[in-house]
């Protein structure tokens, strides 16, 4: 069975998973209002990492380096560094593989006049630099599957471990924001100029965020080899809507099918909560409610973590899995912030306060451009 060895989150709410998790429990949001940022004419609400903090933390671990790293690479390396220290493994060992999840990598380097060599804009190059920092020689796997990348990367990791190819997989998701990404989402009219309100009737769109998040996975022969409380990856699936490249299916076909495969043989009554994608765009939240409703899970508590972190794109699936895993371990269900009145087509149970639960599983959902949807089911021992 595939289990989580260690993890890390770097966001505007903190530089470890614990810091981030305790901020969420205190209803603290990393979102701020930005005007004239990145030279973009319209303001936006987002969660940005402070360059000074990243540089300061990075200078403490990068002692040998003669490479000038980008913000994305530094943040990713910091995240892996912390997760590796906690796991107490040798990341240079050839039994360790890096899987990197990102949608746009160093895309801001397309802007004129920067000091970096042209190949730094390629996603495989970022992955190489991250793995090389840790002296890992295996060809890193790079997942770029739009917004579902972070969950797709975990599914890929589980497959690699089940195939017996590696002993440890370091799954790292990272995204930084830029004029490129913000202006694009603005052109889609997808961004809210206030804090997002997933599943609420007054929701007006999403907020974007910067983050890096890491999970190290390994495989155990049997459950008795693992400590009580250990988080297990049980199953996962990716399914396409075959409907539209930028809009979700009205019948939630892909997400319904992904849940169906992920939950195969699992009693839905054992699911403590559903951590939704919950971007707070009108279409996404409606679609997710339809998928949950079609599975008759209307009573299962649902939350979205977007009001705390924003949508962190390639990092989202990993970051939200970690926060949800911490809540599962503690036996609580986190509050879906920004939610007051239900405003989705299918009646789902959005969780308005932190509540207790002794159930052993959570379901993580995610969807994105290209018609892609993914679901994973996690359990605590």
């Amino acid at each position, binding site marked *: 069975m595939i289990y989580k060895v260690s993890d890390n989150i770097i966001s505007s709410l903190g530089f470890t998973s614990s810091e981030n998790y305790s901020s969420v429990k205190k209803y603290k949001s990393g979102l701020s209002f930005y005007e004239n940022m990145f030279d973009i004419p319209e303001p936006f609400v987002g969660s940005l990492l402070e360059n000074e903090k990243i540089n300061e933390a990075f200078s403490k671990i990068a002692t040998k380096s003669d490479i000038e790293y980008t913000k994305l690479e530094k943040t990713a390396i910091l995240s892996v560094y912390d997760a590796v220290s906690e796991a107490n493994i040798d990341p240079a060992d050839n039994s360790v593989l890096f899987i990197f999840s990102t949608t746009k990598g160093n895309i801001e380097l397309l802007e004129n006049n920067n000091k970096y060599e042209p190949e730094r804009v390629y996603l495989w190059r970022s992955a190489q630099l991250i793995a090389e920092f840790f002296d890992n020689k295996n*060809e890193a796997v790079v997942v*770029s599957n739009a917004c579902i990348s972070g969950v797709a990367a975990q599914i890929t990791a589980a497959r690699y471990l089940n195939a017996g190819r590696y002993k440890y997989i370091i799954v790292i998701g990272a995204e930084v924001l830029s004029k490129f990404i913000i202006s694009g989402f603005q052109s889609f009219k997808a961004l809210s100029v206030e804090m997002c309100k997933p599943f609420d009737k007054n929701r007006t769109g999403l907020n974007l965020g910067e983050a890096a998040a890491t999970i190290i996975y390994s495989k155990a022969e049997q459950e008795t080899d693992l400590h009580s409380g250990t988080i297990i990856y049980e199953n996962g*699936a990716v399914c396409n809507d075959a409907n539209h490249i930028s809009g979700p299916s009205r019948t939630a076909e892909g997400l319904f099918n992904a849940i169906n495969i992920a939950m195969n043989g699992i009693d839905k009554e054992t699911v403590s909560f559903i951590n939704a994608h919950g971007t707070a765009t009108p279409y996404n939240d409606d679609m997710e409610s339809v998928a949950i409703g079609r599975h008759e899970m209307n009573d299962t508590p649902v939350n979205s973590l977007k009001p705390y972190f924003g949508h962190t794109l390639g990092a989202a699936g990993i970051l939200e899995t970690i926060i949800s895993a911490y809540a599962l371990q503690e036996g609580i269900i986190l509050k879906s912030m920004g939610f007051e009145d239900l405003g989705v087509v299918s009646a789902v149970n959005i969780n308005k306060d932190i509540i207790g639960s002794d159930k052993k599983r959570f379901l993580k959902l995610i969807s994105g451009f290209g018609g892609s949807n993914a679901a994973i089911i996690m359990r605590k021992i």
Partner: protein
Amino acid sequence: MKFDIKSYCRITNKKVLLNGTEVPIIRSEEPNSLWLNDVYRSFGIQYLKFFKMDNLSKAGFLGAELVCRDVGLDINVPNKDISIVCFNRSSSLDDDIIYQQTIQDKNNYFPSPAVFVYTLANIVTGEIAIRNKIMGESSFYITEKFSPKQISEAIYDIFRNNYVNGLLCGWTEYFKDNCDVLMMFITRNNKSGKEITTELISKLY
């Protein structure tokens, strides 16, 4: 596990090969006609959305179109047991550069959703899924160069899921007028199929 590669095709800047045999492409007489548009017309494809696609999507779409036609895939029914896995080197950089031009200049700032939507590598898998009603997995991976190792690993991993009966898998690279596509249609055949080796993948490429 053993497989049949039911059909495969190569599309480069100059040639289209289906199952190893070159297919003649009728070049348009217009001076600036696009190669991929000529490939589209040569096969008599009727799908107007094609002309809205970016180059990467066009290239991958055509690769999928040729092999799906060759195997006679029924595209009028949902194909829930078929998946799509694509790889490339340059992600969506070809379209990224076009989008960047729309936001580069403060005095000429016109970010376009129609261009932005293609600034994700996996949109090509979405286009293929829509055209062929493929509702299984769709995944996109990036490697520095054509990687028979990662491609063959993905093939085995996908078919370990017993709900998968067919896989469209390939290399869909398009950057700066350089088109490089290998698309395969693979099915499971444990009785009389063959192992997918890195040598086999290299040979088809």
